[in-house]
């Protein structure tokens, strides 16, 4: 989080300097303000939704769904769980380490991490807000099978 803030601040300052030289800095900040207030109501609801998903999908339930004996089902359930876990990398990777790593095959692990990134349900509010339903349908219809397929590949090659 701090790293992201530092990197974004450096980007913002750099862009401000460039914009100032072109006399466009005020225009840029106005554009930023307009974008921000346009999406603010949506962002507030997005945070509420993410908060409740966080609360209603508890760690224990996730653990129960994925035992050692799940076998090939892990390639379906694993990505489904990955897609549900919220809170960014600093929440997901520690959870993965403490709950799943020792209980799943390489394929399930790869499928779960891939799904957490590519088809995370927590991204849906943002995607709908900024890009619209057509993009969301296109993205998910292409992405949905990828985690399971790469998991299968990982099991075949490295399992």
């Amino acid at each position: 989080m701090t790293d992201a803030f530092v990197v974004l601040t450096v980007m913002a300052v750099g862009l401000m300097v460039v914009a100032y030289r072109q006399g466009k800095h005020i225009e840029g900040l106005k554009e930023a303000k307009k974008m921000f207030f346009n999406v603010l109501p949506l962002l507030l609801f997005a945070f509420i939704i993410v908060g409740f998903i966080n609360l209603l999908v508890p760690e224990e339930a996730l653990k129960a769904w994925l035992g050692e004996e799940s076998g090939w089902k892990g390639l379906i359930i694993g990505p489904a769980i990955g897609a549900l876990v919220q809170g960014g990398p600093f929440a997901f990777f520690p959870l993965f380490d403490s709950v799943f790593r020792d209980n799943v095959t390489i394929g399930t692990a790869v499928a779960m991490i891939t799904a957490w990134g590519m088809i995370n349900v927590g991204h849906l509010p943002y995607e709908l807000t900024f890009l619209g339903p057509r993009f969301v349908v296109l993205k998910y219809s292409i992405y949905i099978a990828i985690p399971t397929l790469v998991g299968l590949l990982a099991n075949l090659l490295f399992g």
Partner: protein
Amino acid sequence: MNKTVLGMAAVAVILALVAYIQGGFPLVSSGFSIAGQTLLRIFPLLIVAFIVAGLVSILVPKEMVSKWLGKEAGWKGPFVGSLIGTLVPSGPFFFYPLMATLIISGANVGTMLSFVAAKTLWNIARLPIEITFVGVELTVIRFLITFAIPILVGGAVNLFLPGQSDKIKEEVEQRQLKKS
């Protein structure tokens, strides 16, 4: 825009109801407090992120976007999109608005799918923490196996579904350029 707000409000209300049924008011209020804490934590980041997105939208000339990420980029688009996705920092509240800005400026949708796949699969800013918790071996295996995916999905969409770009651009424009 308003429809989306209503839809999301409805989802929030349903989730709050589920929380109420499961744990009464204490659970509902902790849901809101998690939301509030997340918002407070991310707020400074959000402000800077929007400043970056706003400045990018003013500074990046449309010709440049369409040259590197649009139709003119051809087969190179998904490669450039994947590379940018690998490098761009921060979370979904930053890169989805950025994608909207780039689409309005003329980026192809397939190329944006390359971007978002690379952002969520290969992002270098995430690599240190993934290695910390997942371990080097599994991280390397995951990178090797998913390596070609961002380029393949973007290339395939640009090749087989070229008509989607304009339709999605229209939808994004309706959302973002609406006079406030």
